[in-house]
């Protein structure tokens, strides 16, 4: 493919830890090569590119995809990018792009950085487009939530938009096909969840992390346990509870504990009634399945 035919991608970093960048750079190498062969990444602040952000602005260069990592603020005292506030930068660049993609939970909703209350206007992209730019995009902003976003989510989104021009989004702006399921799906601990066998404590392969450890898998939209992290694992497979990093309310409080009321988790799996859940738990517990109550490998 000729270089100038490739869609142009610009990656902007706003208020971030750069975790999405490092997540992306850790992508499966074949996928990364395919991405680099099919797209022209014209600018990324962590990489040496032929052009600077200043030149892009001054020469009014257009591109196809604007990927934004990090939350947005108009407060230049706390944050500036080459002399612009993240808000100004976003609103200049949005005029030059076809698609705008929020990479990660900070870019989508403000994420963890919005907890810095002393800088009171930290927000996600959706809330940071100026009135004149609000309707400028031909496609709604795509939110690839997650802290960080999975590299595959980024690559799949870019290719889908390149080939089909649009994607179905859920009410939170996330691609339905990536976020329809729950982190719970595909978790290797699911059988323990079904039979209500809780993990005795951290550091074990045996047991589910829902009842004590605060696992948000059953309430968190993401496909972590289907498209594995770094090709090899996920938090819940390894033994860390899902902390719900793809959801609007991340980060929550007491993420490594399950809030309970008389022994019952305060929140039960999505759309399950608490009473029904309780009776189910009672029944499931009577089964006492030997296999699930001993070590997987003795």
């Amino acid at each position, binding site marked *: 493919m000729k270089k100038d035919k490739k869609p142009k991608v610009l990656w902007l970093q706003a208020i971030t*830890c750069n975790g999405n960048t490092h997540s992306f750079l850790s992508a499966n190498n074949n996928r990364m090569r395919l991405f*680099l062969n099919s797209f022209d*990444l014209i600018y990324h602040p962590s990489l040496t590119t032929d052009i600077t952000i200043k030149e892009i602005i001054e020469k009014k260069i257009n591109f196809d995809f604007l990927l934004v990592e990090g939350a947005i603020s108009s407060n230049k005292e706390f944050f500036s990018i080459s002399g612009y506030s993240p808000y100004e930068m976003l609103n200049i660049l949005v005029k030059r792009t076809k698609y705008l993609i929020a990479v990660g939970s900070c870019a989508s909703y403000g994420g963890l950085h919005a907890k810095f209350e002393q800088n009171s206007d930290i927000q996600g992209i959706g809330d940071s487009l100026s009135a004149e730019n609000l309707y400028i995009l031909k496609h709604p902003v795509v939110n690839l939530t997650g802290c*960080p976003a999975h590299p595959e989510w980024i690559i799949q989104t870019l290719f889908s938009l390149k080939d089909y021009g649009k994607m179905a989004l859920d009410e939170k702006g996330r691609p339905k096909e990536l976020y329809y399921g729950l982190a719970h799906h595909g978790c290797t601990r699911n059988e323990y969840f079904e039979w209500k066998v809780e993990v005795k404590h*951290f550091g074990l392969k045996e047991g589910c992390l829902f009842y004590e450890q605060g696992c948000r898998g059953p309430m968190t939209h993401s496909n972590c346990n289907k498209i594995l*992290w*770094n090709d090899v694992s996920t938090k819940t497979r390894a*033994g860390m509870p899902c902390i719900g990093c793809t959801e609007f309310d991340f980060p929550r409080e007491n993420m490594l504990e399950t809030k309970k009321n008389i022994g019952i988790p305060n929140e039960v799996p999505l759309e399950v009634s608490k009473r029904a859940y309780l009776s189910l738990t009672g029944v499931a517990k009577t089964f006492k399945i030997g296999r699930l109550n001993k070590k997987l490998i003795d």
Partner: protein
Amino acid sequence: MRTVDIVERIEGEAKLVCTWDDKIITNAQIEFLNFRGFEYILEKKAPLDALIYTPRICGICGQAHLKATVEVLENIYKNLNYEIELTNKAKLLREIGLNIEIIDSHIKWFYMFIMPDITALSSKDFSSYKPLKGEKWLKSSFITSEIIKSLAIIGGQWPHTSYMVPGGVVSDPTLLDLTTMKNYLDSAINFFEDDFAGVCIDDYLSFSKAEDLDKIGKDLKDFIDLCFEHGFDKIGKSYNRHLVLSSTELFKVGKSNKRVINRVDLERIEESCEYTFNIDKNKQSKEAYTWAKNVRYADNFFETGPLSRAVISKRAFISKLHEKFEDSVLTRVMARMDEFVHLLYITKNLISKIDISEESFVKPKISLNEIKNAEAKSVVEASRGSLFHDISIKDGKISKYNVITPTVWNLGPGNKSEPSVAQKAIIGLDSIEKAEITLRSFDICSVCTTH
């Protein structure tokens, strides 16, 4: 004359403001203008939540922050006389995870940050190092994404796992998991031998003379040659004072100010805000120009990082280079690369030492949420140098959390009478390119510097 240059590709950006006198830099001000307020964010949070927050201070060294946090929380228990005895397996799994992150970071740094700058000085064809396009760059990105898988096996993912928790680690690897981890490290060793240095790892590890530099081939040789060609063996020198705050299998704690002393006293660390912005304008000094603070040990600026670690633990090859080339750009970069090889070797051995029949986790007897009043500190060696965390807990919540990152030691502002470590290394240079490469030799991370 004054010049202002934006330095990019440092996990964010900084401004380098130089004052010139007859083509020589007489003063260099490094301005970090971005601030995310992590220490404020952590206030009033549940102590365990810090395990989720602090790794997000930095996308590239999150595991170092995780380890510092888990240890500061364990030190809280210790200070209250409820000492937690970690199993050896848990200790090993933590150190292994951190080492893998450092290995990954060092390789990325060489190909993403050092080579693009230094090859740009040459008129020869170095297009294979070109980011995103060159074969060498692509290969390095392939190998880092392979290496980091070995951390994902025990952490579930990278970046941003919180697999270390007070009492141990959350994961329980099988023998096959451990074997696979070693396999990924073997790929990295192959990369080192075939592409990076062109020497077999055992030969490399036996290097003990400065002349052994000549035995190095491949990509690292390209760096060494360019370094000599452009005089980087002579520039970038600073105080040549070194500090390492914590020890591991490879690193020893200590400081060196001409001679090495294997002891440091954390009470002698002092942070200052003389030139630092304050979120409360009334408290801000008139001279404030950056969000970075400065930090000194026993009233002196000290360098921290791979060179300091090699000097303090007297690693043979780098010690010899250091004798000959002092704390130049050449030595600093070589120390970081030498560290990556040693870590590869050591980490493989650490994996072999794991006894999978041991517990991964021992549950602490009381919850941190029940703690009325306590304080603790912790120290960790991160990719870029020594990391320090300091926590206070009141009524079960974090009341204060202070973080001093490695980059604050090296890249913060100076004080009235003395420039900081990186400032001193830049003053006296005669070109902005050299100044930027010297700055970069400290492995700058903007997000960490200001946090």
